């Protein structure tokens, strides 16, 4: 089969590799009909995630048709049309039993190595480095999905791939980020980052009752999408002091909740932005915390910080004093997709959400390298690339 393989920094190639096989009794094989490139894939593309091997197959946002099931698969049948969550979860451990699927104990075969970096290991993830299991990803024609009964979401007829593909990752990610804000009546929510996750966080914040949503970015087409489809008020981070502007727009209080939908490759401005870029180029800092700093400073006292943005190692100069003395509540984590996908599918069916509005490019799988380049450089007003095997 054809598959997108990582081969180094800014080097992805579509190769012909063996087809996946059933390995464990709860596995299923999916023939992939649509798959996407994620913002977090760019961290792999840019070389910021350690433990990648040349030849690793990328991709964790994929859907398609089940073509084979293992002997212990009960709920899922051959022929089912499914979306597949990006974290792999067993359904049996303490964390899965508490709906914390992205923290599953039993799906990372390389958990012992991760403990050296993070203390404990989260669940395995498709196509996201050897540290998170080294699972072959879904930017390919076929994929093997462990614990198919636990994860796979059956999709009814009458919905196009483009409407449901993002149930795999970014839609639940934006939704969980907004839910983690514990939005009360009258709340103002600020969303840093108007990429796909940010767009869904904006939509979700309104669905969950926010009075106002203020979206921050510096890319014009993303701010435009946030305003037109998301109905958010916008701030251009390249033109103004964001923290001060947020204060001004909220009667001096600050937003009640702040979502960091940017993560470790934050684009910084001014002196702190330069600090991060210099340290990163000298390999003294891996994660750029520019947006995280702003989020901590911008949030009102006693407010909530919600961090779906991916961080990998260590970040520098984080204002812990502000965080502590303002009494902020922090929620973070990889998305528990399995918890949210059903209810979000219902919302899509009821017409409350149309995730397909963020798609700007659809390319054949073989054009994946071009797709990565478009997405990384934000060329042609690119916001989201979908690949068709």
């Amino acid at each position, binding site marked *: 089969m054809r598959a997108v393989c990582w081969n180094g920094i800014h080097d992805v190639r579509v*190769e012909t*590799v063996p087809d996946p096989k059933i390995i*464990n009794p709860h596995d299923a094989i999916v023939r992939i009909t649509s798959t996407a490139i994620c913002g977090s894939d760019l961290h792999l593309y840019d070389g910021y995630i350690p433990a990648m091997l040349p030849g690793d*197959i990328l991709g964790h946002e994929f859907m398609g048709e089940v073509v084979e099931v293992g002997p212990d698969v009960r709920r899922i049948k051959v022929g089912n049309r499914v979306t597949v969550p990006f974290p792999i979860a067993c359904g049996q451990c303490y964390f899965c039993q508490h709906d914390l699927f992205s923290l599953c104990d039993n799906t990372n075969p390389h958990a*012992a190595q991760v403990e050296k970096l993070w203390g404990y290991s989260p669940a395995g993830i498709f196509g996201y480095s050897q540290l998170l*299991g080294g699972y072959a990803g879904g930017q390919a024609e076929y994929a093997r999905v462990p614990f198919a009964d636990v994860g796979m979401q059956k999709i009814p007829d009458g919905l196009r791939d483009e409407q449901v593909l993002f149930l795999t990752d970014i839609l639940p990610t934006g939704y969980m980020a907004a839910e983690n804000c514990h939005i009360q009546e009258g709340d103002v929510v600020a969303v840093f980052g108007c990429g796909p996750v940010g767009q869904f966080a904006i939509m979700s914040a309104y669905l969950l009752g926010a009075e106002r949503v203020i979206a921050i970015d510096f890319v014009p087409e993303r701010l435009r999408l946030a305003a037109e489809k998301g109905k958010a008020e916008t701030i251009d981070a390249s033109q103004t002091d964001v923290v001060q502007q947020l204060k001004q727009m909220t009667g001096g209080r600050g937003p009640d909740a702040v979502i960091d939908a940017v993560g470790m490759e934050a684009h910084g401005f001014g002196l702190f932005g330069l600090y991060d870029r210099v340290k990163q180029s000298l390999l003294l800092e891996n994660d750029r915390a520019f947006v995280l700093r702003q989020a901590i400073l911008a949030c009102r006292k006693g407010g909530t910080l919600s961090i779906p943005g991916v961080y990998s190692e260590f970040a520098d100069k984080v204002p812990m004093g502000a965080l502590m003395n303002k009494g902020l509540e922090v929620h973070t984590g990889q998305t528990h997709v399995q918890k949210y996908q059903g209810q979000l599918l219902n919302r899509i069916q009821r017409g409350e959400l149309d995730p397909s509005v963020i798609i700007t490019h659809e390319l054949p799988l073989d054009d994946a390298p071009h797709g990565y380049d478009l997405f990384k450089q934000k060329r042609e007003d690119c916001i989201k690339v979908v690949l068709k095997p």
Partner: protein
Amino acid sequence: MTTAITSVPGRSSQDSAAVQSRRGRTSINSGWGERLADFALGGGLIVGGLQRRSLLGGALILGGGWFLYAGATGHFQPYAALGLVREGGSGSGLVVERSITIGKPREQVYRYWRDFAHLPTFMRHLEAVTTSDGRRLHWVAKAPLGRQVEWDAEITTELPNELIAWESLPGARVANRGEVRFADAPGGRGAELSVRLTYAPPLGTAGAAVARLFTEEPNQQIDEDLRRLKAILETGETPTTENQPHGKVVIGKER
């Protein structure tokens, strides 16, 4: 739950964590052969350093002094940094200790381990463990270069649902002891297992240090073994990515 033998799961001695940690920092972790080597090396370096009147000479003297100190105290700092702990003063034995929580009843986990034939299902380095009378065990393990190593052991202590301890019999190439304690995890989380293995690797501590640098670390190995046990008991399978598609095996192309 507490008995006269087990006070706190995971601690086979009665020492507090502070005492154990202090012992780790200053304990004797070298055997007598190694300590003699330390004296010889240390003395040689100091002599060599005294013959040079230079920065290098100074460095040699400092290095020599460090080795003499290691010889005199029996504490070789790099072993401590690698987590190699000798058991019980200058006795021979390296200790590996790990703990895991499994979301199944204590009795079920105990039963699985007590049938030692199950051990190779989660301990990767084992080929087989067989028994004729339930107390004497015959172990077959994988060794480097595709070989095997075998030895006999017997179960020395057995407290149902609480403790299993075993010890290799004289004649084993690598003398070893093991014990696993079972306790209830709080809040209905299942069972807490605490495993402690003691073994005397060939070539003593130095051999283990080299092995640790170049191959699997014993603590990481038992970590992975216990994780596999947990996965087997909780899900019926162990997570793996072996034999999955990968770009290094590209069809029709040399790599």
